[in-house]
């Protein structure tokens, strides 16, 4: 720690403490390093807009369905009505819901990109996330582009009940068509991805990559611990654990993510020239 100061002496708008190595990081430098700790390479979460900027060829991204916003299919109220929660999340984030979709090129490969944002209601999947991903898959099919989905989500959105659950079947119906048309779908799993998002599209890519240290599990920590009544070993349910168990292809550090995706997409395109999924 520089100058021997205590963490609370660092103004939080200027400095961030790494939860892994406790290093105090200058925010500007952290951002320049793609939100990866400069000392221990801990991957901080990345917002959807930043993620898109990181992945696509400069200036190639055009957003789709930017105005889609959630209804209230159940008329759901807990301590607050659901529409108020949505409005608050929208005001806080400046986004309409927990996902941004659009078209872009990635290493000159034409793609449809869908990127989730954990900051918006825990990245939860309701009808808007389901609709935007389904439209993304349908567009990829119609325009013969590859589909790349970056997930970061606590799972299905409780406030939309079974309608949220049905999004899993809706999205996978569209992914099945993409698969039958032999169009590539790459799943990028980031911290954290759990529940209904992991139990649907995130687990199904032709290629599945994850970021280092990402929490990736079906059930929440408390649920799992509750069923066995003991503490789980450290690293249980992290990306490295899933790699070892054979559920993901690779762990890719953030600075390499773009070139790695480009490599796979280019390879698939080269082998599929006759299928013309290129532009």
């Amino acid at each position: 720690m520089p100058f021997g100061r205590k963490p609370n002496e660092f103004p939080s708008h200027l400095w961030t403490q790494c939860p892994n190595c406790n290093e105090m990081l200058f925010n500007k430098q952290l951002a320049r390093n793609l939100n990866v700790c400069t000392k221990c390479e801990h991957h901080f979460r990345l917002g959807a807009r930043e993620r898109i900027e990181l992945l696509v060829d400069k200036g190639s991204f055009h957003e789709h369905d930017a105005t889609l916003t959630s209804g209230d299919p159940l008329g759901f109220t807990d301590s607050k009505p659901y529409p108020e929660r949505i409005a608050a999340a929208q005001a806080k984030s400046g986004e309409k819901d927990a996902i941004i979709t659009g078209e872009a090129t990635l290493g000159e490969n034409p793609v449809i990109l869908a990127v989730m944002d954990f900051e918006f209601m825990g990245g939860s999947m309701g009808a808007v996330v389901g609709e935007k991903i389904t439209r993304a898959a349908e567009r990829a099919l119609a325009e013969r582009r590859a589909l790349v989905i970056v997930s970061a989500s606590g799972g299905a959105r409780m406030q939309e009940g079974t309608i949220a659950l049905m999004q899993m079947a809706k999205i996978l119906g569209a992914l099945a068509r993409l698969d039958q048309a032999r169009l590539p779908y790459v799943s990028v799993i980031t911290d954290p991805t759990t529940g209904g998002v992991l139990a649907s599209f995130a687990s199904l890519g032709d290629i599945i990559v994850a970021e280092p240290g990402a929490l990736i599990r079906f059930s929440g920590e408390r649920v799992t611990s509750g069923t066995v009544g003991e503490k789980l070993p450290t690293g249980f349910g992290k990306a490295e654990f899933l790699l070892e168990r054979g559920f993901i292809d690779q762990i890719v550090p953030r600075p390499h993510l773009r070139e790695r995706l480009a490599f796979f997409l280019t390879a698939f395109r080269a082998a599929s020239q006759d299928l013309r999924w290129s532009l």
Partner: protein
Amino acid sequence: MSMLDRLTGTKRTVDGNGHLPVDANLITEPAQLASRASPWEAVQAARNIQRPHTLEVIGRVFDRFHELHGDRGFRDDPAIVGGIADLDGRPVVVVGEQKGASTEENIARNFGMPHPEGYRKAMRLYRLAEKFHLPLITFVDTPGAYPGPEGEERGQAEAIAQSILLMARLQTPIVVVILGEGGSGGALALGVGDVVLALQNAIYSVISPEGCAAILWRSPAEAERAAKAMRLSGPDLLELGVVDALIPEPAGGAHTDHEATATAIRTALAAQLAKLERVPAADLMSARYERFRAFGASAEPGTAASPPPPPESWFGRLVKRMTS
């Protein structure tokens, strides 16, 4: 009117309530119910240990049934059962989640909570149905997929995802019947069909009412309120379109008369299979896609064609956050 109804001519908008006599025993509008159980009563009824469970229903509904075991990879999961059965001389593949009728049996069946190998066994049987053009009938009855570490280790999420994907693309008719509890993704892994039916007092939800209460109300004791808000009971599911029709239960509930319940299920299944058999495979696949594609409930103000704002760089946003 759904695409499937159009294809099969089951509903006609012009004549009366539009239902053919084959559907007459089913409840397709909440108004057809004499009384509406409270959501919490439905939760209790759906979980009643004396309610008929999958193997018993199979035994009463079908003329013959031979169980098929194992996922061919790891083990035979007792929380999912399946096999080949015979309904009025028509062979079908049946797969269902199995709860126990006693504490002992429930422990053996893991309370109807499947492990990944259970879903992989189910998928093996789905493929069998497709390969030999046999209709697939699934019975849903689970509090949810097993959330323990063994499940995580063996890919619970992957197994459920693959199972949903396979059902979405399976080229054979599928009828889903929710018998008791439809617990989230663990239920949906058996829940993608051309027709989705539920027993009158069955429930279907994205999370258990207790789980929802613990997260949103910060107290599992609020489960009753959560159950109401979640709209998980039969009439709610009809209104939301999550199930196509309810199968009526005997007056005191399914647990009071297993035989009458099974007869109602049998009548419903026979009618649905007769209907689905007339639909060409390609049309069936389109109708199934459209059925699930329709769950939108999102509004779109303004025009979709409005030019998107130029994306702001993460660096720019960070600088803005720092200086604000």
